[in-house]
């Protein structure tokens, strides 16, 4: 599992499950734990996930990375099940497990044969409150996270620019810091920080249990009562993050690095998410991302790559599944001899035309077809379904909202898309990023073999 904020994964999160979609059963235990059961009887396996409503945007200032660091440390054992016990058991059962952290949630999962569901529920319930940490496991794991940061971000100029772009998009909201954390702050995180964060946020009333696969809702309820049901409710804090002011100025970030052999242009706009948008607005932004960036039929590709011949590639994305104001992005890579300035000007032209005229009827119909088909394709994968409903819950979107989504997409009009582009794809809401080699540097760089 990769970072949930990656471009493109965004669309997959909410854009699925149709009105004729899976028959999701939802209920709540007395201790406040929400439970969702998603049937898929095609194979005798289950996907078991627990999502906590806490992510990197819920971290205290100066402790960036603690949500993700805790996610790693959750594999280090509990009072009852010592280090390696849970993972060892999952492996013996032939199960797969992992976890991931986003800005808004942290989730843990196992995929096992259905007869082993109770076992993984027992262990997962145990680590909701039973985590036990010593410096002997915490300190090497902090080095692991620093290596993870080096691998994902520090070694890749494009990823470093993306991090800067995100930081600049938010002037006040904690979405500005990276999920993995800033290096100097990761280095200071310790056992006490992790446990404090854990005690503050990990509780049944701040979590959802999602079970997808070859199971019945009532059987899951009985198991959930027996395992998670005995954990007491806790006093978890409400989400109350500093919000963004109305954006005022276009910002620019640029990174020159000798390792940039292929320049690129990235831009992100501050836009509403499904939770914060006015009715219909987020759906219009979903359609807009398709019309602009939907593969080779998207406007950006057609204009910049095919018609004008300025770019080698171009695309767009909308990170729709977020608790607070989120981002809409466009990007392009220039052909040799084309400056980023020229490419940016052409890109601005494509966006301006969309804001002026909207999509044509064919483009609109195509975008809707592709988006609603995604909802059906998603039903072929129980793990995908579990992630869609879990992420929706953690960002304030209900099962009903997810199930209505294809119908709402079908209602989006040309005027809606035009209005979304006109209102949100404006420079004062944007940060534009340039990735370039240093001036006059010879690009392409590995030195001769030693």
């Amino acid at each position, binding site marked *: 599992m990769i970072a949930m904020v990656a471009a493109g994964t965004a669309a997959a999160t909410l854009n699925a499950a149709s009105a004729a979609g899976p028959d999701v059963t939802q209920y709540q235990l007395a201790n406040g734990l929400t439970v969702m059961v998603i049937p898929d009887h095609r194979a005798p*396996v289950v996907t078991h996930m627990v999502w906590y409503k806490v992510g990197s945007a819920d971290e205290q200032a100066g402790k960036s990375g603690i949500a993700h660091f805790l996610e790693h440390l959750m594999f280090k054992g509990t009072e009852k099940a010592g280090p390696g016990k849970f993972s060892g058991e999952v492996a013996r059962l032939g199960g797969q497990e992992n976890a991931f952290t986003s800005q808004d949630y942290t989730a843990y999962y196992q995929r096992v*044969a259905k007869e082993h569901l109770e076992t993984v529920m027992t262990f997962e319930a145990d680590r909701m409150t039973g985590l036990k940490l010593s410096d002997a496991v915490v300190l090497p794991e902090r080095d692991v996270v620093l290596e*993870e940061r080096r691998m994902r971000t520090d070694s890749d100029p494009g990823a470093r620019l993306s991090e800067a772009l995100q930081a600049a998009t938010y002037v006040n909201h904690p979405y500005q810091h990276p999920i993995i954390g800033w290096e100097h702050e990761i280095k200071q995180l310790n056992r006490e920080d992790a446990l404090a964060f854990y005690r503050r946020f990990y509780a049944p009333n701040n979590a959802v249990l999602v079970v997808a696969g070859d199971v019945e809702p009532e059987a899951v309820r009985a198991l959930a009562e027996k395992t998670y049901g005995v954990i007491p409710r806790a006093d978890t804090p409400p989400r109350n993050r500093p919000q963004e002011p109305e954006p005022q100025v276009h910002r620019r970030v640029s990174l020159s690095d000798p390792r940039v052999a292929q320049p690129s242009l990235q831009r992100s706009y501050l836009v509403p998410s499904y939770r914060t948008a006015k009715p219909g607005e987020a759906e219009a932004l979903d359609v807009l991302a398709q019309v602009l960036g939907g593969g080779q039929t998207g406007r950006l590709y057609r204009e910049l790559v095919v018609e004008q011949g300025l770019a080698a590639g171009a695309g767009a994305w909308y990170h729709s599944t977020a608790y607070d104001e989120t981002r809409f992005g466009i990007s392009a890579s220039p052909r*040799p001899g084309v400056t980023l300035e020229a490419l940016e000007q052409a890109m601005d032209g494509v966006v301006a035309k969309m804001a002026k005229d909207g999509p044509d009827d064919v483009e609109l119909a195509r975008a809707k077809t592709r988006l609603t088909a995604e909802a*059906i394709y998603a039903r072929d994968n129980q793990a995908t379904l579990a992630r869609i409903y879990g992420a929706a819950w953690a960002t304030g979107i209900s099962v009903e909202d997810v199930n209505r989504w294809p119908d709402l997409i079908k209602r989006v009009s040309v005027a809606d898309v035009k209005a979304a582009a006109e209102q949100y794809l404006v420079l004062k809401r944007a940060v534009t990023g340039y990735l370039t080699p240093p001036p006059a540097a010879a690009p392409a760089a590995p030195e001769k*073999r*030693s």
Partner: protein
Amino acid sequence: MSARPAASLFSARILVLVMMAVSLVSAAPAQSQTTRITRVVSPGGIEAWLVRDTTLPLLAMEFAFLGGAAQDPAERPGIASLAASLLDEGAGEYDAERFHQALADKAIELHFDAGRDELRGSVRTLSENRDAAFDMLRLSVTQPRFDTEAVERIRTAQLASLRRRSTDPNSLANERWFALAFPNHPYGRPVDGTLASVADITREDLAGFAKRNLARSNLRVAVVGDITPEELATELDRVFGALPATAQLTPVADVQPQGLGKTDVIPLDVPQSVVMIGTDGLERQDPDFIPAYVLNHILGGSAFSSRLFKEVREARGLAYSVYSYQVALEHVGLWFAGTATKNDRAGESIKIINAEFQQILDQGPTQEELDEAKSYLTGSYALRFDTSAKIAGQLLQIQIDKLGMDYIDRRNSLIEAVTLEDLRRVSQRLAGARKALVVVAGRPVGVVGN
């Protein structure tokens, strides 16, 4: 961000395949006893393996033409890859734009990709658009246009991608490893070509590749979804019937990796060294492949409990990702380990990985490790069969590997039968693996090329 890297990060994990949709019974002849795979042979003699599943209104097809990038001429690598990228860029009466529009208007997904030994393709469609999907597929494989506009546009994108990879440590290490191991063999050439070779590829190269490589004799097909065997038989002739009967493949020699015992450093200014360690392995047809697979699982194949994971990551915090995997190519079996670790501890990491290779080859695993490996490998079998595309992918791989339709029923018992004595025998056969070819990209401390 996640606690453990996903297996998909390591694309070379060509491992054993499994079954799950097992226990599905069906009555048609020429069929596996315990699975519902049906061997469909069209009137024209084209074979496909089908799992009919009408639960969802969709269809997934995976297919391959044996041959792949190993067919590229020595002086011009990248033809197969570029040709694969162009098969959906205009065919029959459709130019590229109209071809993509026709797909997008019905949300049909059609992809091609060249590997070292095959050119692979996939189709995903809603049932209601099945005819259109098969029409587009038919045109793409039987009447690709290779229009100048499309060739130049896709060439441009390929060159941009190669420039990006020219400073990426993972790409550099991988390409260098194969170049050093197979100096005078097709496997030593980069699958996607070089900046020089891709610039030189002509339309004739591409059309010639399609003409020689896309044929009925080297075609393998797997289908999962909402279609009857009779309907599929008809469609197979309609889609592939116009292809030449026999592919004109250039024979590729069996080969052994060179340079074992050598170390090569690619100096690159990155904070982390990427390490690729490769040595002898076994081919897929080898009777000892399964014991070798189990041995690798214990060394570094399991993301959770492998020896490499415990020693390199958990105990010392040297890396986020560390793993080993087998690659069974058509003409050689290989065994790899890899990691990414900060420069000043790269030497230490390589020493530990080498020591773990030695240790497992010299002394073998314990009975407990073997039992746990078997338990995981047999238990996780089912998880590879929970989506249509995954099932189709498994059926295709079994055909490519010539394992027989009953392989799915036999696979777990093959794993169960592995003994410590088998592992000792495999270790002796893999004695050459005590020496490896090591490639490091970065500024590793304590690592010197030789």
